[in-house]
């Protein structure tokens, strides 16, 4: 029974299933938010989580990864993201309900009243500080900070992992070259975050939790933060072992586990299909990929803007709309590439290693 359960969990956590499962879970949360925001749900999640965390470490392989001192924060991250997503959703559902009944939001009702900073706010801060300090001291007494062997630039550990908060980026390296995963995408994440207040044309939902008044914003941010950041960090920490191969939570990190490399460039597919040898000029050779990318970035925004997103163009204006779409398309490239990798083993859409230009 135990072994079967472990095998089932290992099977379930394989990256494609893990990703598909996370997507389904998010969709379920959005659609079933009324149900998800019930107290019993969060109690059940944490009860199950506790049972799991009591049971699973009896497995030696699970214990090895979960008890690495630097992995404790990721468990905290997971728990707190689940909890706060629930808490936010709960207040959004309550507020949306109240607005439907013609009542003011919770925040509007409470906001009418002002209270003194001393004692009301000072006490909250004080108690938070004391609890947090106590928590930190206990944690520090219980878990020693790691120190491994002295630095040796000649001996590369396997796996070599970046600090945990960058593991989302390292996971993207599976699908993109470093110039995209490590430079362009993080750069656009920062630019995109900065641009959010100037791109969001929706004046509603300022200063209170609401889903119905800004569904796109909530879905967009939760997908970005939960699916492509937090869940990637968790994947990179717990499920990626030597050579960045996938390992289930109960699997032994075998140095010799090999995943066959069968990935193929788009250009190879194309010239095989046409039945001609690959041209030597890289620009001609990669023309199919280059044209698809140009089409993706140059045609998609105007086409969508003329049709389904006409309303958005109107409320945002041309310049903002275009900036928004280009950032969005860059991020969309990631799931697109992931799907292409999983379905047709695509390596590069455009592959010009001569110039380090691989997409």
């Amino acid at each position: 029974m135990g072994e079967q359960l472990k095998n089932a969990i290992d099977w379930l956590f394989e990256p494609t299933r893990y990703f598909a499962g996370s997507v389904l879970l998010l969709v379920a949360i959005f659609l079933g938010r009324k149900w998800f925001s019930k107290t019993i749900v969060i109690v059940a999640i944490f009860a199950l989580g506790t049972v799991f965390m009591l049971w699973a470490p009896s497995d030696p392989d699970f214990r090895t990864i979960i008890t690495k001192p630097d992995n404790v924060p990721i468990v905290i991250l997971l728990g707190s993201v689940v909890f706060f997503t629930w808490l936010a959703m709960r207040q959004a559902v309550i507020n949306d309900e109240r607005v439907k009944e013609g009542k003011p939001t919770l925040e509007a009702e409470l906001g009418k009243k002002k209270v003194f900073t001393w004692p009301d706010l000072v006490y909250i801060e004080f108690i938070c500080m004391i609890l947090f300090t106590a928590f930190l001291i206990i944690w520090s007494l219980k878990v020693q900070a790691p120190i491994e062997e002295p630095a040796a630039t000649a001996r590369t550990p396997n796996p070599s992992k970046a600090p945990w908060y960058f593991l989302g980026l390292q996971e993207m390296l599976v699908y993109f070259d470093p110039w995209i995963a490590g430079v362009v995408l993080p750069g656009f994440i920062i630019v995109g975050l900065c641009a959010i207040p100037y791109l969001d044309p929706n004046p509603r939902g300022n200063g209170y939790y609401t889903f119905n008044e800004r569904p796109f914003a909530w879905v967009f941010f939760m997908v970005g933060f939960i699916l492509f950041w937090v869940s990637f960090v968790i994947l990179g920490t717990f499920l990626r072992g030597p050579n960045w191969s996938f390992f289930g939570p109960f699997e032994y990190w075998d140095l010799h586990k090999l995943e066959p490399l069968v990935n193929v460039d788009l250009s190879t597919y194309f010239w095989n299909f046409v039945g001609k040898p690959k041209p030597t000029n890289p620009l001609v050779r990669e023309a199919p990929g280059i044209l698809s990318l140009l089409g993706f970035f140059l045609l998609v925004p105007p086409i969508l803007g003329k049709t389904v997103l006409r309303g958005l163009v109107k409320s945002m204006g041309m310049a903002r709309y275009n900036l928004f779409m280009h950032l969005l398309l860059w991020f969309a490239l990631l799931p697109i590439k992931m799907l292409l990798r999983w379905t047709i083993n695509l390596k590069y859409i455009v592959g010009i290693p001569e110039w380090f230009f691989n997409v």
Partner: protein
Amino acid sequence: MQKLFDAIRRSQIWRSIFRHGYPDTPRNRTLAVLSNTFLHLHPVKVRRSGIRLSYTWCMGGLTFFLFLIETITGLLLMFYYHPTADKAYQDIWALREHVPLGIMREMHRWAAHLMVITVWLHMYRVFLTGSYKPPREFNWNVGVILLVLTLLLSFTGYLLPWDQLAVWAITVGSNMARATPFLGHEGPGASLLSFGGLNLVHAGDDARFGLLAGRFVGEGALLRFYVLHCVGLPLAASVLMAVHFYRVRKDGGISGPL
């Protein structure tokens, strides 16, 4: 006993510090906030809706609190640490071996991890409450820079123990810089920047070299990261936090329905 307390409260020393009676009247509560340098970060009165834990999750406050813990524990660690390739590792090791019940390194490390988490969650809550909308656009941007600084602080600190974990994590992390378009020697476009057959961008002068002060993570990188970690980045973060808090108040306090 009561008399003793009263005497203390009437003494010149006490009254020179606290210019108000016990804060249990509206007047004294106002004065308690207004006359205290630190409490004065706050307005005298706040909207009931904004201070509920369920609204702010106290995440911004906790991030700041963790930053303070980092400053104190980090200062203590600096007394025992030399940023040189032959001493750094031994110093860290000595902290564990020679200090009974020493938990400064642990506090510093775990609080740093927590700070990364709390700053993410803070951003999450600011987004979900729509608090970046006018008039708070600018403060959101200050926040984004603080987020980057928090990650950089953590990243530079990760190298300092100078063990395998540290060096290789920074190697993997900084390898990305090698691929910066035009600025990294393995980045797209870099090979176009050549002059008479001579590459302008190579492993000895590209973006990664600038970050690490060398072609690999060595002593130069250690010193560079140390200075950034202990002086440069904390200074920048402190200044921006001051701006951030000031703007929270100038933008009308913690957000609420307009």
